[in-house]
C-alpha cells in the first residue's frame, strides 16, 4: 500500500527540474535518444574528425590505401603538406585556390551592403503601411527566396543572355549599348571588380532581399512604439525618426543580418556553379567551388580538398561564434 503511494508520488514529481526520475523513465529517455546519439556520431562528429584527418594525407578514393579509412599506404601521410601547398605552392590548383579566397571575400564584401542596406529601408517602409498592403508586398518579396536556386539561375541566365537577354534588351531600349557579355567576359572590370562578379552578386541580392527585409520587419516590430511616438511628438519628421531612433536601436540586428549574410555567401554553391562555373578566367571562383571541384570533379587529391574545406570551416566557425555571441547578449531597448 505504502509502496504504491510512494510510486505514485515519484511518478508525479518525475518531471520537475532536478526531481527524481524512476529508473523506468530514465531508461526510456536514454533508449529513445541512443539512435539519435549514434546518428550524430556517424554523420556529424565522425565526419569532422575524418575530414581533418584526410587533410593530412594525399588521398584519393581510387587508390588502394592503408587499413584505416583508406589512408596511408598508397595514400601517403603528408602532414601539413596540403596546407603548405595551398598557400605557397605554385601548382595551378593552389594558385586558383588563393584567387578563390580573394574572390569569396570580394563577394561577401559586395553582397553584405547591397543585401542588408536595401532591405532595411524597405522594411521601414513596409512597416508604415496598411496591413493588407504589407502582406501583399511581403508575399511578393519573399518569392525569390522560395524559388529553388536552380530555377533562379535558369531565370537569370535568360536575363543575362548576351544580346537577346532581358538586361541587354533593356539597355538597348534605353539607348545604351550593353556589354558584349555579362557573365563571361574577363575584360569587363569596373573599379577592380569583374562584371561577372557584380552580375552574380545582383542575383544573390535578388534572392535574399526578401529574407533580410523580413528580418528587419521582425526587429522593427520589437521596437516599442513609445519611442517612435515620443519622437513624433517632439516634432521629428520621418527622416529624423529613421536616423536618430530606429538606426541606433537596430544596430544589433544590422550586425546580425550582416554576419548571417556573410555566412550565407560563403556557402553559395549553385549560383557560382551554374551561372559562371567560376569563370571567366576564375574571376568568380569561390572557395566552396574549389572544394567541390577538387573533391568530386578532379579526384586526384581529396586530401587537398579536405584541407580547403577545413580552411572554409575555420572562417565559418569564427563567424558562427560571433553570430551566437550577438544573439546571446541582452536585447535591451
Amino acid at each position: 500500500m505504502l509502496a504504491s503511494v510512494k510510486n505514485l508520488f515519484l511518478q508525479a514529481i518525475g518531471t520537475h527540474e532536478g526531481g527524481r526520475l524512476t529508473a523506468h523513465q530514465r531508461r526510456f529517455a536514454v533508449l529513445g535518444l541512443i539512435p539519435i546519439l549514434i546518428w550524430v556520431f556517424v554523420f556529424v562528429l565522425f565526419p569532422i574528425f575524418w575530414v581533418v584527418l584526410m587533410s593530412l594525407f594525399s588521398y584519393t578514393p581510387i587508390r588502394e590505401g592503408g587499413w584505416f579509412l583508406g589512408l596511408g599506404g598508397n595514400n601517403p601521410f603528408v602532414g601539413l603538406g596540403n596546407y603548405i601547398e595551398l598557400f605557397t605552392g605554385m601548382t595551378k590548383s593552389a594558385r586558383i585556390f588563393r584567387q578563390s579566397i580573394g574572390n569569396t571575400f570580394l563577394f561577401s564584401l559586395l553582397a553584405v551592403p547591397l543585401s542588408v542596406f536595401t532591405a532595411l529601408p524597405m522594411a521601414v517602409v513596409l512597416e508604415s503601411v496598411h496591413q493588407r498592403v504589407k502582406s501583399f508586398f511581403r508575399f511578393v518579396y519573399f518569392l525569390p527566396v522560395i524559388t529553388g536556386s536552380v530555377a533562379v539561375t535558369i531565370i537569370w541566365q535568360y536575363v543575362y543572355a548576351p544580346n537577346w537577354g532581358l538586361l541587354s534588351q533593356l539597355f538597348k531600349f534605353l539607348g545604351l549599348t550593353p556589354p558584349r557579355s555579362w557573365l563571361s567576359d574577363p575584360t569587363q572590370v569596373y573599379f577592380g571588380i569583374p562584371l561577372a562578379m557584380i552580375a552574380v552578386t545582383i542575383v544573390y541580392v535578388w534572392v535574399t532581399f526578401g529574407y533580410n527585409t523580413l528580418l528587419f520587419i521582425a526587429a522593427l516590430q520589437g521596437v516599442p512604439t513609445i519611442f517612435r511616438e515620443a519622437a513624433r511628438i517632439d516634432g521629428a519628421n520621418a527622416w529624423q525618426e529613421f536616423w536618430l531612433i530606429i538606426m541606433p536601436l537596430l544596430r544589433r540586428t544590422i550586425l546580425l543580418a550582416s554576419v548571417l549574410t556573410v555566412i550565407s555567401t560563403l556557402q553559395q554553391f549553385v549560383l557560382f556553379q551554374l551561372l559562371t562555373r567560376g569563370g571567366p578566367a576564375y574571376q568568380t571562383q569561390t572557395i566552396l567551388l574549389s572544394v567541390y571541384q577538387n573533391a568530386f570533379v578532379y579526384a586526384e587529391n581529396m586530401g587537398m580538398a579536405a584541407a580547403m574545406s577545413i580552411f572554409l570551416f575555420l572562417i565559418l566557425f569564427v563567424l558562427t561564434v560571433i553570430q551566437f555571441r550577438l544573439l546571446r547578449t541582452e536585447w535591451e531597448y
Partner: protein
Amino acid sequence: MLKRLNPFVLLSRSAAYIVLIAGLTFTLLPFIYVMLASFKTNAELMRVPPTFIPETPTLDNYTTVLTDPDISLTRIFYNSGIVAIARTFLTLLISSFAGYLFARYHFTGKNLFFGMILAQLMIPFQVVMIPIYLLTVKMGLIDTLWALVIPMLIDAYGIFVAKQFVESLPGEVMEAARIDGASEFGIYWRIVLPQLGPALASLGIVTFMNSWNDYLWPLIVITSSEKRTIPLLLVWYSTQHGANQGRVLAASIITLIPIFIVYFLAQRWIVEQSAQSAFK
C-alpha cells in the same frame, strides 16, 4: 490622433509607395519576363528589337517538355516528392521526440549530449560533405533516394526549437496523464505532439522546401538519370536544350508550379519560421 493631410505627409506616403513598387518591379520582372518568354517561339525570342508580349504565342515549348520521351517527368517529380516527404516526416518525428526527451527528462550526460547535437549547428554541411559522401558509398547507398534522406535526418535546430517548445508546456498535463497510466511514449504521442502542431508545421514546410530545392548533395550522390531530382533534371535539360531557351524556361516554370502552390497556401508558416530562425 488626427491624421493631417498636409503635403509633407502626402509626399512621404507616395515616396513609400514608389519604393515599394520599385522593389516589386525588381523582384517580379525576371519572373514575368521568363513566363512570357516561355510562350514565345525560338525565332521570336532572338528577335531584335525585342518583343515583350509574345506576338505569336505558342504552347509548343510546354508540349515539348511534357511529352519528351527522354525524361519521365512523373518519375522525377515522384523522386523529389517522396524524398521531401520522407525527409520532412522523419525529421519532424525525430526532432519532436528528441526535443521532448531533452525537455522533460534528466539523466547523466544530458547536457553533454545536447551540446553534441548543437555542434551540428556550427558545422556547415559543405565542410563534411566529403566524408559523408564516402560514408554513403561505404553504406552502399550511392545513387539511391535514401542517400538523400538519411544523412539529413537530424536537424539540430529542429530539436532545439522542439525542446524550447516542450519546456514551455505546463507540466501538470503530462503528470496527470502519467498518473492516469499513460506510457511515456503515449505521453509524447497523445499529449505533447498535438501541442507542437503549429511549430512543427513551420519547421516542416521549410524542411520540405529545402529538400525539394536541394542541388549540391543530389548532384554528388545521384548518378543515374531515373533517380534524379527536379533540380538535377532542370540543369540537365538546360544543357541539352540550351539553344532552345523557350523550352528550358517552360521546363523551369513547370517545376516551379508546385513550389509556388505550396508557398501560396503555407506562406504564413514559411515567413514566420524564417523570421524566427535568425533570432534563435
